């Protein structure tokens, strides 16, 4: 928390300096940039596809609530945001907005009345969306049944509840700009880059954020903590990089939430299960193909796992490994196998499984505590699930099991501490 406090103080100082110098006047004109690609001719249909790819509905719909009427709680280190109503209701939604107003929100991060928007709304990604796509999205949103539901005010900690700080934040971290196709790359690659960086806003989760909540780089989604899960790096071969995957396998994972071929095996869980369930499984195949083409081409980066793990010698007491083995044999081996070899199709191997071996142990800890299912999709309609162990095993026991798993059968990830399990036990389920 301390880093966020210092971040806040830094912002206050910056804002005073910058506000007079720069004001809030960096509105870009609404002139239409060239569209990223040619897509469906009917703007409403194209808008529907883009809204699906951007997964607008997930954040702008409360559980059990009217679609796009807002009210979903979005917890962050700065406080809790509540998504607004984006139906066409005149009083509580976007009913009085024009396509130009909408473009300013998406591209420049301003509301209709000039209010600066918090970047929880990922306009840092959406700024890459072309004007014609913005208009198509807006046209589609006009077709949603208008719902009268007043927006709930955000509940933010001081000083983040002062929107004026966003002037400084934007100066530091935000430059509006539509995606520029890269010459020398195929139209498919450029389409994929446009979708991954812009519409799909993958980096909003798959990238670490600094003390002021800004993603650290635009090009390399290198892993970040979000909603109490670790969104792995999309560029590291030790995490979720797909640089050697057949494109068909990447598409399969995005579309069905699971891939299980000779060379590649993976499944989506946690918040990614929502992305697959609500967005990607409904995306057109050529869009997924473009995203996969781009993702596969991302330059490899090396996350901290790589330096710290296998070369470091950990002194783990024999008694802990013995206890872990004993607990593993009783609780896990029936499905995951005595040697961590897994049993298809029900249980993945744990030997060599990079999801279990990342330096951030948040995901394996959560999986043992709470279990969970992959999303049910047309391609994987009856997923298997991991049972929760939060009720039957103590924090220490779970740590012992995970130490055993992370240090056996050729695995050499860092050991974890019981406190790491404790600090995840009370976290909400997503």
């Amino acid at each position, binding site marked *: 928390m301390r880093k966020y406090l210092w971040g806040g103080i830094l912002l206050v100082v910056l804002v005073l300096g910058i506000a007079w110098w720069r004001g809030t006047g960096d509105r870009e004109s609404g002139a239409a940039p060239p569209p990223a690609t040619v897509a469906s001719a009917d703007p409403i249909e194209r808008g529907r596809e883009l809204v699906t790819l951007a997964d607008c509905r997930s954040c702008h719909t409360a559980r*059990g609530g009217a679609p796009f009427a807002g009210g979903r709680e979005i917890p962050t280190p700065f406080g809790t945001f509540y998504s607004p109503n984006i139906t066409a209701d005149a009083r509580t939604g976007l009913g009085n907005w024009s396509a130009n107003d909408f473009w300013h929100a998406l591209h420049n991060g301003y509301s209709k009345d000039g209010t600066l928007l918090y970047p929880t709304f990922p306009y840092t990604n959406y700024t890459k969306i072309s004007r014609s796509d913005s208009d198509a999205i807006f046209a589609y949103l006009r077709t949603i049944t208008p719902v009268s539901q007043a927006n709930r005010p955000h509940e933010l900690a001081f000083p983040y509840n002062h929107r004026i700080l966003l002037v400084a934040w934007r100066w530091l971290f935000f430059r509006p700009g539509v995606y520029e196709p890269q010459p020398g790359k195929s139209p498919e690659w450029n389409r994929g880059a446009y979708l991954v960086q812009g519409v799909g806003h993958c980096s909003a989760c798959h990238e670490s954020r600094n003390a002021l909540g800004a993603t650290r780089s635009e090009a390399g989604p290198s892993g970040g903590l979000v909603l109490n899960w670790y969104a792995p790096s999309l560029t590291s071969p030790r995490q979720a990089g797909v640089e050697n995957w057949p494109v068909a396998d990447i598409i399969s994972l995005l579309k069905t939430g699971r891939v299980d071929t000779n060379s590649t*095996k993976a499944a989506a869980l946690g918040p990614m299960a929502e992305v697959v369930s609500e967005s990607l499984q409904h995306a057109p195949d050529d869009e997924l193909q473009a995203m996969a083409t781009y993702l596969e081409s991302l330059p490899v980066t090396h996350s901290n796992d790589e330096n710290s793990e296998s070369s470091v010698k950990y002194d783990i007491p024999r008694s802990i490994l013995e206890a872990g083995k004993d607990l593993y044999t009783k609780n896990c081996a029936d499905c995951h196998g005595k040697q961590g070899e*897994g049993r298809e199709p029900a249980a993945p191997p744990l030997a060599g499984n990079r999801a279990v071996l990342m330096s951030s142990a948040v995901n394996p800890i959560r999986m043992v505590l709470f279990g969970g299912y992959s999303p049910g999709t047309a391609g994987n309609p009856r997923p298997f*699930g991991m049972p929760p162990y939060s009720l039957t095993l103590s924090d220490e026991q779970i740590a012992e099991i995970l130490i055993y798993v992370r240090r056996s059968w050729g695995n050499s990830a860092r050991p974890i501490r019981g406190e790491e399990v404790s600090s995840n036990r009370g976290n909400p389920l997503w």
Partner: protein
Amino acid sequence: MIRKRRNPLWASLAMALLIFGGARAQTPDSELDTLQQRVKPCTSCHGNEGRATREGYFPRIAGKPAGYLLNQLLNFREGRRHFPMMTYVAQYQTDDYLREIAAYFGSQQVPYPPPMPTRAAPAVLARGHQLVTEGDKTLDIPPCTACHGRRLLGVIPAVPGLLGVSQDYLTAQLGSWRSGVRAAAAPDCMGELVRRMRHEDLDAATTWLASQPVPEGQEPEDSFEHSPPLHCGSIEQGSRTP
């Protein structure tokens, strides 16, 4: 088919990417390709075959009408009921899969344990018995048996039995209906009814229900004897077929 591993790329994508596959285990893995294996996350808390235990908070799900169980899964998924672990497991599953899981537990016929001994005062039990079997006309409360079946074992497909669940569980459910935390598909007949009832009457009814043994070998009734006294959205939702 022989599966050769070519330089396996241990891949994980997304939030927690788990990798499947690898060497063959001793027993055929195809034996795990069952619904029983798929519902392991359910049975961790609800017990093998969904039988639960008589003292736990987690309710028995074995042998409850499948439409009722489906309703609850949909209620958790869509925010009418609130229990984080249930919402977590149900939230991204399809109607068809949830229906299949509901049917699986609905078809489990396993014996009930005897009820916990009760220390309630005889007057409380008598009032509970009266409310459950006769209702209270002056308070406009129909008897539980009017909807939940003469034997209180439920009515197929969507009305649950009320016997064989702990008092803790019953009290928690009625209490959360009363406070608006739990709801059923509209119109929410149970919510309306619970809000009509006095606190001590809710307590008396659950005390008596939890003290009753479940008759051996008896199943939910096939249909209502008379049409239910209230209009229940849950009965329609749970009766829907794919």
